[in-house]
């Protein structure tokens, strides 16, 4: 029973973060939600008894994708013609 509650919670959170990735107005917020989604995916893989995929998802989905996307968001904020400027 407890495990069903846990699985239900993980699935609900997966769907909720997936919706909020698209629904959040600010791009930064969307990316943060996407990182949270990646962490929840890692949790889901553990529940699916796939620890290999959970390891890869935690390292890639949460770590590398997050850095890449946040970097891109910062670039879009600065604008196309002043990325050498101070404001980051």
């Amino acid at each position, binding site marked *: 029973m407890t495990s069903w509650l846990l699985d239900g919670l993980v699935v609900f959170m997966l*769907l909720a973060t997936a919706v909020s990735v*698209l629904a959040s107005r600010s791009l930064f917020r969307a990316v943060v939600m996407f990182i949270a989604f990646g962490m929840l995916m890692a949790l889901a893989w553990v529940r699916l008894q796939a620890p290999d995929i959970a390891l890869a998802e935690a390292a890639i989905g949460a770590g590398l994708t997050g850095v*890449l996307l946040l970097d891109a968001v910062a670039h879009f904020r600065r604008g196309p013609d002043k990325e050498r400027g101070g404001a980051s």
Partner: protein
Amino acid sequence: MSVHLLYAFAGAGVFTIGLFGMVFMVHLLRKLLAFNLMGSGTFLVLVGLAQHRNGVDPVPQALVLTGIVVAIAATALALVLIRRYFHLTGQVTLEPGSRDDEGHS
């Protein structure tokens, strides 16, 4: 109804959400995020459905592991292209004349 099947249905839901974003959103970065959601949903369906029928199955797990690494490489390449496009045109959508919704003043 097993746990694996529950996650397979969750994967179907995530895929649909991603599909909606892919079709409806205009901002290229949001399209990319939605595309990644679609990928994650596919992986969940693949592993969940196979394991619901066969028990713990290393073959779909290995396939999904390969898929995740290819997906991150594709995402990184897409980001390079989007940023280049933004640098050259000042736009973040493919629709002519519209500016991005992020409003960089």
